[in-house]
């Protein structure tokens, strides 16, 4: 069925994946494709960004009609900052890995969220370096064992907690085995105006899928605790809205209204978590760390804060589209200026 742009789902595909069969990253690529198709994303405005790693290869495997930039290891955030600053109309969708983001790229990651660069930032988190064959990453759990590299005795970094502390305005965690949740969160993320971080546990079937690893499929399937049930209601989607609300009890739902008029409707589950509270978000993550809980869902959402382009007070016209006369002051201006140096 063609979407609003008249495109089929297959139009949103990319090249065939060269990842290991069963790799968690591939199912995320699939959800990105579905999201983009459902949301009728204009592919020419999408830029796909990544660093280096198995995860960072995936932009080749979705939305083949979008420009893409597979950068250097860990430094994609600065590419994203530059590109979205240059052209505010671009929709940036970035994929990174736990090594790419949590090790070599940690500083850039933190400074990106601080600047609130408008983009979707997906971390395909498998707790291991896939592409270099199975070393520990900074999100590997304390006590985790790997085939070759033995035991990890360092505490693991929680990238969601890091993002919230660092000033991110949209922070979610998911599991690549939970297709529906991944997709809903992606839709919300792409509607968010600001940096949207989604940390998706995405098992590496080749190097880190033993059931005792908490980045594995078996573990994820068994232990995932979704914080909410979700519906994503795109902007302008009026009709069935009422129907959806009917499902939920009073007081148990939260409507998060996005910048563009879309909403995510959350039905609170056990934890009763309200993602609009930074305090709650931090607390729940700290607790999850302590009690080794695998909480998924929208952890934190901040009313649109100023994005970088606004902080910089840039023109509404993308900088890349400025007419030549706005790029060079007149000869007269130069001459006057020269006078002032005489």
């Amino acid at each position, binding site marked *: 069925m063609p979407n609003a742009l008249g495109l089929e789902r297959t139009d949103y595909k990319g090249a065939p994946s060269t990842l290991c069969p069963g790799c968690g990253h591939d199912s995320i690529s699939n959800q990105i494709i579905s999201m983009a198709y459902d949301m009728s994303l*204009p*592919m*020419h*405005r999408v*830029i796909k960004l990544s660093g280096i790693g198995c995860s960072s290869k995936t*932009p*080749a495997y979705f939305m*083949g*009609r*979008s*420009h*893409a*930039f*597979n*950068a*250097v290891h860990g*430094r994609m*955030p*600065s*590419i*994203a*900052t*530059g*590109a*979205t*600053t*240059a*052209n505010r*109309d*671009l929709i940036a969708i970035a994929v990174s890995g736990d090594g790419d983001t949590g090790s070599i790229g940690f*500083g*850039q990651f933190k*400074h990106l969220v601080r*600047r609130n660069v408008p983009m979707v930032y997906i971390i395909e988190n498998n707790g291991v370096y896939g592409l270099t064959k199975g070393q520990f990453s900074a999100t590997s759990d304390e006590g985790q064992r790997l085939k070759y590299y033995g035991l990890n005795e360092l505490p693991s970094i929680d990238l969601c907690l890091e993002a919230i502390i660092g000033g991110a305005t949209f922070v979610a965690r998911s599991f690549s085995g939970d297709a529906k949740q991944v997709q809903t969160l992606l839709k919300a993320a792409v509607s968010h105006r600001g940096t949207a971080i989604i940390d998706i546990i995405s098992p590496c079937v080749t190097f880190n899928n033993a059931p005792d690893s908490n980045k594995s499929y078996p573990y994820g399937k068994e232990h995932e605790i979704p914080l909410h049930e979700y519906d994503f209601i795109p902007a302008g989607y009026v009709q069935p809205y009422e129907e959806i609300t009917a499902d939920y009890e009073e007081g148990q739902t939260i409507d998060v209204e996005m910048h563009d008029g879309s909403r995510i409707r959350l039905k609170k589950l056990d934890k009763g978590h309200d993602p609009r509270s930074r305090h709650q978000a931090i607390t729940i993550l700290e607790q999850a760390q302590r009690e080794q809980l695998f909480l998924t869902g929208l952890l934190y959402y901040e009313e649109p804060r100023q994005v*970088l*382009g606004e902080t*910089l*007070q*840039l*023109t*509404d016209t*993308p*900088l*890349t589209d*400025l007419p*030549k006369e*706005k*790029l*060079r*002051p007149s*000869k007269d*201006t*130069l*001459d006057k*200026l*020269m006078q002032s*140096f*005489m």
Partner: protein
Amino acid sequence: MVVELQTNVQARYNGQSEPVVNDFTLMVATKNGSGSQTSNEVLIRSLFRMGIPVGAKNLFPSNIKGLPTWYSIRASKDGYVARRAVSEIAVAMNELTAAEDIQNLPPGGVCILPKEWKWGQRREDIVYYEVPVKETVAAAAVPADFRDRISNMVYVGVCAQLFSISLDIIRQALLDTFGGKEKPAMMNFGVVERAYNWAAENLEKVDPFRFEPMNETAGKILISGNEAAALGSLFGGMTVAAWYPITPSTSVIDGVLDYRHLRRDPDTGKETVAIVQAEDELAAVGMIIGAGWAGARALTATSGPGISLMAEFVGLAYFAEIPCVIWDITRTGPSTGLPTRTSQGDLLFLYTLSHGDTRHIVLLPASVGECFEFGWRAFDLADTIQTPVFVMSDLDLGMNIWMSDPFAYPEEPIKPGKVLRQEELEAFISEHGEWYRYKDYDSDGIAYRTLPGTDHPRAAYFTRGTGHNEKAAYSERSEDWVNNLIRLHNKFKTASELIPQPVTDYDASKSIGIITYGSNDPAVEEARDLLAADGLETNYLRIRALPLTQDVIDFVLNHKRVYIVENNFDGQMHQILRMEIPQDNRHMVSLALGDTLPMTAQWIQAQITRLERQPVQEK
């Protein structure tokens, strides 16, 4: 405090009678952060207003307050602006360096110093003027807060009196310096005037130095290289500047901040230039690469340590063919080195920056005029050649104030290079039946690119630092790799025709040549005059960019002896020349200084004279 001098006392000062007019150097020694920057600027502006050619060198420490700093102002009726190793006049306001400052004066020199100081020994062969700094300021009834800084105006007044600068001109210069603000200008002027009058009444002028009005600066401007670079960039259509502070490059971005209003959208008051302070240089260069990829004209400015940190990313931009402009305002390295001292030590490193087979374009401005020109031209080159373009200036050129003709408006419109926007892409495809990102349609090594956001179903391509074929598809095939590198090689050849060509003063009858680049130019020009006066006529070629062109090689081969003058330790341009010249080049002599200070004509002259007057040893 007691000033202790070494004991090799020279001949007694003999009241030299021949007046020395507009041809000497005045050096002010103070403490960093003491506010002397203002008074020195007033002095230099005054001379400039008098129509006297001036050059200024600020020698400052890597410190915010307290360590020694020296500012020397050269007046030269002949228009020479290079540094001179010797200053005839020392205004010794820093007790920590006074002994050394006085020691360094030539016989017949002049020392102006606070009256309050005590003396160990005195040189007898120089003139002293002792000035009651504290008293004068006290008498001027300046608010306590300002007293320390304003005390520098005392030496301005004394110098004005001693060396004949009119108070009127000083007043004007003060107004200039304070951006037209009457109140601070007049408060300062009060102190100047008081000191001027005190000197008139109390000092007997016995030295021969004097300023006299000329007419050599009319229509000229005074500006620093970094400001010029900022302006050039703003006139070059820069839209993104990302940076991380580092001396001596910070003032490039400060210049952009100061003048970005020239580009502010008059209708909305919004900015057309994004200025992002990055978290480090890796991020800064990543941002401009991202921006350049998206179609912005993007710049960063840094210095050696930043260049090192950018190495990986620059290799990506080179290989993925992304335009961006990187100013390296060089300082003394290796390592952190001396952040506040000048050098040209990054040349070879810039040229080959990043692992693997990479080679870069490096522009080498020699004047504030060229800083402006290369400021806009660098963007045209980067966009045309689709590659990072380095501009290597240095601390001397970048942070000192230089006299210049007003900058010429760019003679060419902005050149976006081979960018296919929507309609152009359509046209291209209907002409060629295809468009591939890395295909060499014009046999110049330069392919056509599209920008993200181009509303055309075939506009997209995949940018990567890994192996790719013409179609921008991932490839591990040896042939694809080699073909791509061959094209990049050809692109570099094309580039060598587009970059600024060398400036040459050549006459087949002369057998000695001098080659230099960048800020050494004034010293070389002056040295050539000195050498010529001594009977050594020289040809001259100034390299304005890397890669080298045939002209440069011909110049080398056409001389009996060629001196490569540069301000680094290893003689890096000399090494690059050797790399490019397979013929016997033992007649090429490296004159590499690298002593952390701007080049002097005297040093060049001495080296060449020594070597020409005796058989040259193979180096």
